[in-house]
């Protein structure tokens, strides 16, 4: 690869679901990346060079993510960042592996990305989805509740999430079962839940698991469940309402009391100096409240700068080696390290109850507990086995 001249900026490719179903998540991530890049450029850039972000919109489509990946690499991107969900991240990951271009996912939580399908050129500073469901499922298993209904948006990430959550619950409580005919898959964007809720009520579950309802669907489901009084007698469990984008538009009056959840950027914002500083500058820059993806995008860009500085030159192999085991201050989750063997960060998770956060005027969490990533991330051994199994398939 030709060395860049001193006066040439470092180009970093940034593909974002700025439109389409994941627009809210993608846009938050892109804003985090841009804020960090602006801060880095203001304080002198990386290796004395300014960062130039190549920005493009994937429209939430994996094939677009792949096309833009190639396009931005052809335009001279040193590495790639994806403010995109898991399916798009998977498409980009394949290309990253083939072309040996490092790719960082900001919005892809999928387990398989760093596990079964992980490789030398794929990175994730954001949390692994295991953080959302593992502590939550273990807590659920401890409760004397056995009859479950599930309702989720119908897409691969949600299917995997639902399957994995139930598997962890059943490890702790083997007699937990999903009631007959009480497993619902609704298209992304669905907002009419009346008939689902009345059907759930007629089956009489003790727990309703709806982790895979995202965005508009999650909000609409909560509001309609509240109007039918579903969660007056039934416990609700959603693995990621503490991911702020999942709870946008949820209104104070629509908040059921009885929802157990987890999140990687909880509201009210975590009261640490680094998070308060991030919260303030993000809010000033974008006139918006930061979300999980904002923090992840910000951390990712800062991490990339640190790793390039450590490598000391613009060389992709040297970059990967420098990045392995490197640590970075995440706004809310404290100091996190990129695990050398699977390129997954040690970002932890918060569990708690869905609750109203009056100060920020939005849905947040109460009874919050922080759980370190060691409680849910797979060991080096497990990752090795998963990859070996995937390779032999």
């Amino acid at each position, binding site marked *: 690869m030709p060395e860049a001249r001193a006066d040439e900026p470092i180009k970093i490719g940034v593909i974002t679901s700025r439109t*389409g*179903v994941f*627009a*809210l998540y993608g*846009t938050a991530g892109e804003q985090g990346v841009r804020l960090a890049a602006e801060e880095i450029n203001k304080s002198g850039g990386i290796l004395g060079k300014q960062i130039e972000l190549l920005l493009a919109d994937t429209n939430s489509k994996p094939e677009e993510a792949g096309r833009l990946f190639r396009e931005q690499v052809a335009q001279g991107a040193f590495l790639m960042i994806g403010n995109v969900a898991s399916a798009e991240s998977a498409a980009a990951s394949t290309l990253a592996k083939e072309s040996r271009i490092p790719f960082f996912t900001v919005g892809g939580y999928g387990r398989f990305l760093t596990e079964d399908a992980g490789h030398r050129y794929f990175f994730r500073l954001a949390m692994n989805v295991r953080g959302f469901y593992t502590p939550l499922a273990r807590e659920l298993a401890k409760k004397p509740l056995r009859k479950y209904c599930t309702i989720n948006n*119908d897409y691969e990430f949600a299917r995997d999430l639902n399957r994995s959550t139930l598997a962890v619950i059943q490890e702790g409580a083997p007699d937990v079962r999903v009631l007959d*005919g*009480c*497993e*619902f*898959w*609704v*298209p992304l*964007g669905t*907002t*009419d839940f*009346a*008939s*689902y*809720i*009345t*059907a759930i*009520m*007629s089956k009489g579950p003790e727990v309703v698991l709806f982790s895979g309802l995202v*965005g*508009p669907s999650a*909000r*609409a489901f909560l*509001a*309609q469940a509240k*109007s*039918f*009084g579903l969660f007056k007698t039934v416990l609700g469990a959603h693995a990621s309402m503490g991911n702020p984008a999942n709870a*946008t*538009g949820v*209104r104070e*009056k*629509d908040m059921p009391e009885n929802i157990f959840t987890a999140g990687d950027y909880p509201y009210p914002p975590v009261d640490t100096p680094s998070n308060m500083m991030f919260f303030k500058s993000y809010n000033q820059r974008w006139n*918006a409240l930061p979300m999980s993806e904002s923090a992840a995008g910000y951390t990712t860009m800062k991490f990339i700068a640190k790793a390039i500085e450590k490598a000391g030159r613009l060389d992709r192999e040297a970059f990967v080696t420098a990045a392995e085991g490197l640590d970075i201050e995440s706004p809310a989750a404290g100091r996190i390290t990129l695990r050398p063997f699977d390129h997954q960060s040690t970002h932890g998770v918060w569990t708690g109850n869905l609750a109203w956060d009056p100060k920020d005027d939005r849905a947040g969490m109460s009874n919050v507990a922080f759980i370190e990533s060691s409680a849910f991330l797979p060991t080096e051994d497990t990752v090795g086995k998963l990859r070996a199994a995937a390779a032999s398939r």
Partner: protein
Amino acid sequence: MLWLQFMSGLQSAAILFLLAAGLSIIYGVCHLLNLAHGSFFMLAMFLAYSITEKFFSNSDTGFLVALLVVPLLIAMLGIVVEVLIFRHLYQADVLVQILPSIGLIFLISDLVRGVWGLESRSIDTPSWFSEPVAVLGAYIPGYYLFIIGTGALVSVLVWFLVNRTPWGLLVRATAANRDAALGLGVDVRWMFTSVFGLSTWLVGLAGVLILPLAGANPGSDLDASVDAFAVVVIGGLGSIWGALASAMLIGMVKAFGILIVPQFTIAFVFILMAVVLLVRPAGLFGKLNR
């Protein structure tokens, strides 16, 4: 419990009817497919959000004002769009008609993104309807009954307008044979404009009504259009009563399908569409070769 399922299906049907009726009327009278129908729906939701939340700090009065004002605003917009754009295209080829409505979809979608951003917006259910009401032994949220009631009332109103007023007579005449109506001195221009106004008023009303339950989302425009087209195709293009029957059918098939065979939820509407079109290619109430 079957009764509760029936009522939830009825609520879905009421919204589907209000959403799709306008699309069908426009086609029936003006022979125009307005692909941007769902865009008016989405815009109504965001406008209702702003009026209720910003001007009336989310009070019940705000909802009432939105319910009365927003459909009128949407109807006015519909009239403006008809006068500026569609009026000039009635004689044109279908493809030529469709292009500006696609343009309208992008325009309204970007407008919504620019003004309201990407987040879901919603308003509180009016406090008058916060308590469930016992109907034949099942507790049904008051607001669902309000939606069902409004849907029924509007159906009657539309029936009255079309069947019992001089305006309705002209609408039926124009729909039956435009050239003959024109020859008999019907002012077709004004007729089409008023039909557009009524249609967009209906879809605006649907948007405001569903807002507290569904929330306003950028992207709901296309979902709404797809739903509306499904209703209209099953009911028969151009037939209001087809739209009503089809909305009821879809609402019930979904409600009971979800209860009985939940694994096929996603396919219900398409299976229904396939069956209806196989048996009656023009839809339930549609006519071929018009």
